[in-house]
């Protein structure tokens, strides 16, 4: 399990990186944390001819707050989110999410943006991105575009990113009133069998707006409109949470793998969404 050979590029500026990526097109892959890429290379399931290491570019590891959004640079590690005062203040739910990602040694290296680029449908960040209405910035040599999380993930391990493009940041909406995250994995630190994230706007006693996303139920992180519809306009109670969970389970047609059949995952979707919503409800109560 040794990686295949490749050309190594270590640009020191973003422009240089984008030039290299532009010139190499689909023959190149960016390397940030490498916690998904390098295992795949060791297994020889990924064999890029060129690896463009962006770790030598200064300034890509910033976390900021802009216009109701938490902005995260392309070299921000998972563990940085755990330690960040901005993240804690703006999106305290992230301190619930991040401990589910691998282990300390993985979180020191792996990046938020890298996880989005890798687009594992069972991973936490893609699920979070969908729930938090994330906007992902893609830059290429001479161009930049911003894509919403709803349209970013296309299928298993695939996004709208074009050859030559680099994900240069993500921003998460922060102006929700309540959050919930629930994950079930076989063991601590494993990829989720199913995870669910909810972000709610609450007015008075009832839910005004909801974003519900699920990991592990499809070829991409899934936004579950049926669950959202089941909760919007109602008071957030354990009963309505479970009803929304049922609606979510009803709506999905999960894939199956050795960790769970489609019907098992379907049940879990209901449980996870229900529990994430109950958690959001508990937290709302705590605050009032």
């Amino acid at each position, binding site marked *: 399990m040794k990686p295949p*050979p490749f050309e190594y590029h270590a640009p020191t500026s973003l422009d240089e990186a984008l030039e290299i990526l532009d010139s190499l097109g689909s023959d190149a892959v960016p390397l940030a944390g490498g916690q998904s890429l390098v295992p795949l290379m060791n*297994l020889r399931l990924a064999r890029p001819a060129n690896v463009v290491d962006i770790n030598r570019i200064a300034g890509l590891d910033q976390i900021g707050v802009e216009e109701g959004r938490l902005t995260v640079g392309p070299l921000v590690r998972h563990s940085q989110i755990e330690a960040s005062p901005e993240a804690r203040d703006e999106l305290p739910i992230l301190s619930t999410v991040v401990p589910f990602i691998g282990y300390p040694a993985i979180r020191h290296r792996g990046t938020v943006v890298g996880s989005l680029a890798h687009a594992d449908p069972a991973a936490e960040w893609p699920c979070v991105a969908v729930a938090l209405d994330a906007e992902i910035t893609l830059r290429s040599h001479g161009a930049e575009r911003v894509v919403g999380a709803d349209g970013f993930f296309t299928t298993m391990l695939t996004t709208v990113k074009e050859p030559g493009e680099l994900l240069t940041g993500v921003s998460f909406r922060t102006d929700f009133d309540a959050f919930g995250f629930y994950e079930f994995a*076989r*063991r601590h630190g*494993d990829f989720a069998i199913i995870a669910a994230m909810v972000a709610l706007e609450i007015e008075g006693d009832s839910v005004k707006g909801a974003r519900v996303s699920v990991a592990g139920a499809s070829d991409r992180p899934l936004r579950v409109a049926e669950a959202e519809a089941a909760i919007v306009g109602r008071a957030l109670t354990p009963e309505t949470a479970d009803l929304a969970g049922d609606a979510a389970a009803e709506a999905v047609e999960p894939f199956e793998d050795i960790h*769970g059949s489609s019907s*098992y995952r379907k049940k879990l979707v209901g449980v996870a969404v229900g*529990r994430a919503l109950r958690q959001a409800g508990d937290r709302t109560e705590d605050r009032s």
Partner: protein
Amino acid sequence: MTAEGQAPKFFGARVKRVEDPRLLIGKGTFVDDIERVDMLYASFVRSVEARAKINGIDITEAEKMPGVVRVFTGRDFSGKEVRCVSSYDGFQVSGYPALAETEARFNGEALAMVVANDPYLAEDAAEGVVVDYEPLTPVVNAEKALLEDSPLVHEGWHSNAFVERRYQSPGFGEAKEAAKHSVSGRFVMARHSGIPLETRAAIGDYDKGSQRLTLWTTTQIPYLIRTGLADAIGLPENRIRIISPDVGGGFGVKAQLYPEELACSLASIELGRPVKWVEDRREHFLASHHAREHVHEATVYFDDDGIVDALEAKIVVNMGPYSVFPWTATMDTGMAMGILPGPYKIKHYSVLGYPVATNKAPYGAYRGVSRPAACFTIERLMDQVARHRGLDPAEVRRRNYVTGDDYPYKSAGGLEYDSGSMVESQDLLLEKLDYRGLREWQESERANGRLIGIGFGAYTEQTAHATKEFVQRGVPIVFGYETSTLRLDPQGTLVINSSIHNHGQGLETTLGQMAADALGIDLADIRVEYGDTSQAAYGSGTFASRSAVMAGGAARRASEQLREQLANVAAHNLEAAPSDIEFESGRVFVAGSPDKGFDFAQLCRMVYHRPELVPEGQQPILEATVAYDAPPGTGTFTNATQIAVIEVDPGTGGIEILRYAIVEDCGPMINPMIVEGQIFGGIAQGIGSAIYEEFVYDEDGHLMTTTFMDYLLPGTTEVPSIEVFHLETPSPFTVGGIKGMGEGGAIAPGAVIAGAVEDALAPVGSVMVDTIPLTPQRVLGYLESARETAARQ
């Protein structure tokens, strides 16, 4: 002058392990740490098919790739294979080739070997080898493999069973007829294995000048590997030296002769340079031997009081295509047939056993060998008897246990249980856990809607079985003894060379503890060496919970011989009788006159450097070798009771272990700290068997679990803090009364957790938990069945 006359100083003490410092500072020496001058690196090309005819292997591109020295295929090593033939009548023979030549028989079988001057380049070139496969219908399921219309794994065989074994006790038929009640089940344990953290590795190093082959290899059984390798490759045994240095866990997986060991040796002989191979984790999943895949159909017959009178079973084990060396393909079936009645006084027994050839990976040893499956079956049945009779599971067990007066007890399975404390162990555990209080708490939590379950597992564990047992098993090699050679030098420091291996069991410490007291010397003055066939005469190695008993017994006996030699010399020079000489704290002196004597070192130096002071007829060296065949030869039996308290999450099917406790009785403990470490480790592996670990094959025999993302090992957050308590019932037969215990922890957790899950689901409805591992999906399936049962009633 017996050693027993004095209070032992080291035997029984919680001394720190001698082997730890080097491992703690990163200076252990594992095979992959070893570099040789001019060394080459091997990478294997492995079959992507479970079963295929090999029409050809094209190596022309691979040979041209950078760094490649040579590419070998089956044709180069034609006829070189591992064979292990049972002496049972009708045993069908298979050869396990160094490199498969004409047919691949499992996904992962080695077909070609690239040798290059760098491991990265070797792996590159392995990808350049092109194999022309003609897929054949694979045999995957062992029960289907026994059907008449099944394809045959081996041409010329009359069925896929390596052999068919049956045993029926006299009077079984009548007992079955007479029985008032019976319960049956079909119990399934999934294929999994030991998965040591260090993968296998080997360096073949043939010296053309001396015509000697040195093989460094990650093995638990260096001497057997030497013989097996010599036979397989046709080299005289006196030209082979096996060195097994520090080994990063074995658990049985490293107790077989593997084709890669043949291939590295043959390649080195051919090329005249050292050839190193380090297995990667994917290869380990594919080609290191698997274990545990049992299906048991079993019925117990019992009376109104829940007393079990008879047991009937059919045991099918999915062995993969080859009979492995040195165990043969009959090991698991044979052992399961013997131990299935467990610690219970079941009088009548009928059993059928089928080790079945299939196109899955070959099957070898794993900690507990078949006893986890046997324990799973009998314990699950005991729980069904309890339920059937409305009795507490602890009470049903108590009524059926072999008890104090029964020992030595000849079991229905033909084993001789030498001693034990089943009832006492269970009582102690119930008391320690406040079992009644625990049940009350469970009831109150059930009222709160929690699915809390309590599960039991009891077993008697055959350990240190020796000559008599293996003769009965029909294996070609009778693993009857272990050897320890003790040598004192002129400074009075001791080297113990032993035929066992040590890869975590603490034997570098405990063998010293066994020897120190007789000589009155300190542990710091003893070195234990092993793992090099140039060191000891012969022995089998470390497996089957035998090393402390057998090599330790040998070390104790040899230390007594050295004591006698020294006492003679001391007596001769002190004008005393040898029987009056005492050994204590580095002094050898006449009893009652501590001043009249020698320092231990002074006396040793006298023997070597002043031979004229050695009594006539005695050799002027201090050496003793003992090969110890632990009596009675059928094993000494350790026993234990394990209990777990668990909670099932009805939403996810997840299991949380709230509490796990064990009472273990392995006789007098040489080092209780090490005993406890072995128990914890065994239980953790058993929890893996119970909940997490499974090699999943698809219908075509492709292995789906080839990374640690798919095959799940329990971590710190999955294994609870385990409570352990001891009883110490000595063996009436062994040196010091000690018993083996290395495997025990791993035997019961499957039964314990399954019983606990069944108990947790009981308020929902009645269901029999009969398959492990209990993945969350399976648990939800059982919950669903429990609901259906309840709805029907």
